[in-house]
């Protein structure tokens, strides 16, 4: 089996994978980073969204071998500090503050998408823009209301960081 090496959440990692191994499988099964979720098999739900070389992508639609040398950030790598002095990313903080999650399954993908959205579209996002940009992320619990509020607040808070 071929070897693939990349940086995940700031750490160098390597593993033997099959040609068909998806990036999300590599993250979940090889690295035990189970915060990245799989909610569908057609790249519709967005639960598996991560950052690949600074861009938001669905990790179920990328082969692990295609990520040789890449820089990957998952939901586990978004906050800084250790377990004792964890400093949440402003977008994580906003999801908690605005009750932007219920069961939490779509949440890692939502947060990673939202951070990517701010990078692409800037900090002053209006409601319509956020709703349109969330097209690739499905939530079944929240009715999106509080997710949109959270993204708006998180985007504004990222300005200060």
């Amino acid at each position, binding site marked *: 089996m071929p070897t693939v090496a990349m940086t995940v959440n700031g750490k160098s990692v390597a593993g033997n994978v099959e040609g068909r191994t998806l990036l999300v499988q590599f993250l979940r099964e090889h690295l035990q980073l189970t915060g990245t*979720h799989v909610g569908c*098999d057609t790249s*519709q739900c967005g639960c598996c969204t991560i950052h690949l070389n600074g861009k938001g992508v669905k990790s179920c639609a990328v082969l692990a071998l295609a990520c040789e040398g890449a820089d990957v950030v998952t939901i*586990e790598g978004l906050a800084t500090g250790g377990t004792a002095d964890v400093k*949440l990313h402003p977008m994580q903080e906003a999801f908690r503050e605005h*009750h932007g999650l219920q069961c*939490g399954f779509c949440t890692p993908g939502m947060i990673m998408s939202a951070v990517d959205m701010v990078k692409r579209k800037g900090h002053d996002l209006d409601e319509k823009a956020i709703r349109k940009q969330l097209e690739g992320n499905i*939530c*079944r*619990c929240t009715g999106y209301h509080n997710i949109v509020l959270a993204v708006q607040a998180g985007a504004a808070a990222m300005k200060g960081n």
Partner: protein
Amino acid sequence: MSLTTSSNRIGQPVRRKEDLRLITGQGRYSDDVNLPHQVRAIMLRSPHAHARIRSIDTRKALTMPGVLAVLTATEMLADGLQPMPHKPQSNSPAEPQLINRDGFVEFDAPHYPLAVGKARYAGEAIAVVIAQTIDQAKDAAEQVEIDYEVLPVVTATAAAAQCDAPRLWDGPSNVTLDADVGDKAATEAAFARAAHIAKFETWIQRVTGVPMEPRAAVCEYDAATRRYTLHAGSGGAVRLKQDLALMLDVPEQYVRVLMNDVGGNFGTRGMIYPEFALVAWAARRVGRPVKWLCDRSEAFLSDYQARDLAVTAELALDKDGNFLAMRGSNISNQGSHPTNYGPLKKGVEIMSSLYRVPAAHFRARAVVSNTMITRPYRSAGRPEVMYVMERLIDIAAREFGFDRVELRRLNLLKSAELPYTNPFGMLYDSGDYPAAMESVLKRSDWSNFPARRAEAKTRGKLRGIGVANYVDTATGVPRERAEITVNSNGTVDVVLGIVSNGQGHETSFAQLVHEWLGVPLDSVRLITGDTDIVKVGGGTHSGRGMRMGSVVIWNSANEIITKGKRIAARLMECDPSVIRFEQGRFLAAGSDRSASLFEVAAATTQLIDLPEDLHGPLTAFSDEIFNEASFPYGCHVCEVEIDPTLGTLEIIKYSAVDDVGRAVNPMIIHGQVHGGIVQGVGQALMEQCYYDPASGQPLTGSFMDYAMPRADNFPFFDTEISEVPCTTHPLGMRPAGEGGTTPALGVVINAVVDALSEYGVKHIEMPATPERIWQAIRSAQK
């Protein structure tokens, strides 16, 4: 800590305790559990909706790399695996049973986890393939040779009830239940003197729950102790354990069920699934832990589906618009096996909603068809019938010249009329129904709608507005238990038989304990997902979590205080009667002595002269049966704008007033309403499990074809929580989880039809997709 200034009390929008782990990727869902030496299971499913299984040849598959076993119905029956323990009739004493008409012939239709002899829906599991890896199992599954004799199918609800329909079982027809509710003679008499009769025929289409976390299960079997340990998410661990023990035909102590985070439920994940028993059985057979993961495509085949009710209904009115009676027929499509009459019953018994309807009669039938099994889904049965009643009222208003709000005002039950027994025998306890409607009419600026419609018209758009009242019968498994243990290390354990599927139980139940025992919110640890600790509990469904959980926690907390006073009396050398409990401390009257709850808890193991019943640890439990139904209610208004050239629709405003009796955490409740509305609107406008009527093939097999509501389908919602205390609940609470969904179907379709009224459109069936709206406009123009 002063409780009076605490922001964590009952009624406060406390931020959720569970969120830190969920927003940092530390949640633990079913597929996150892997066991050493586990192997993988794949379900081989029937490609035919109805087929006799002539033979299954597994020889070639067994020689494939990595394969440990290929199991079929033959092995399943030989090993004595039992059918699914469905109880079609609910066991809640609050609900009357649906009793078959005289002469109705019942027949057996056992639901085995693997099809025996015949497949009755496309996707029914035929065999389980166990291999070292998923890919090996999938490759081997392709080598299993099955000889099918394809049979004719029936999928549509009303068609399945016909006597010449293709027959699924050896019965006289596909009808599995045929009952009457209400008073037929009184209803006929009322119809005979009616000035107006509104008629409505509809099909509340089939949808499915779609929790975002696909199902997964891993089970290990320990041969030495003969014990099965299953890790799988569900609505409740105890029920899953009991059901699994029944299917494995072993005493309950030989089964342990574990679950942590559960990624959504909505009812369709609420009970045991065939695959859970199959992995347990397979684990024993192969001597290795067996894991199964359902991908989304497989979920659209094998997750329980819901709704699917064919209705004909009539409403009789006098010349002034007073409702006199209603009558009709409801047919529930159960899918391949009759497993749950709950939605049928819960619906048909509140057809009259919150209105004064002196007489009613309905026929309630259930049928089987070549489709996936249907089960309760968020507000099971009630969204369907609220939709029917609210459509009937709008139809009557339009047809007979009444104002639709005035017609509702006239017939809505007033507070002074409660408690009220509806014509089906259900007793509504309390509430202020007109207040909810008036409040939402105001919030939605109903009276100024004509101006908004006129303005939209200038832009070539069609505006419509709809209103819908609702009542929601909440019952569920009647028994629930809580056990509270105060630990001397400053923590409080609460053991409860209700598993959170996203409702924030770790927070709202902790608020109760904080309020009643005066301990910090963070000291409370909720334990729900391990049947070695949790012995009793009905799980999360039918608005029973907070409704029952609050009472058993309240009782347990009071018992802790009573015990604590006696112990504190020993510590402070005074009589228990002079001790009072305030904000987490026991205080002795007339002295400055006091002891904290945790000091008292420590004393239970330190004092050697305590009476036996006070020996440590400091713990108390409450185990209660809840015999009464609860009736949450409210009113929603929806305003839509339609582009007549495209048929596309935009929800301009959605306002809701929902009564929860007493709100524990309003932030969580608003969130429940938002999510509930979207699930209801999803059914009204886009969702449907489509089946090809000729072949019975499901056509909605992924998120590419099953239309899920997305963020840009909605505006922000305008939601209000009403708190009129519930008189049948000791703490005044009503359930809050389903109200968002219950009126949403009716209110949206009422708004859509209102928007299209200038074309003379009288009704549009769900889902009101742009295509259907466009067709309705085009047909009306001809």
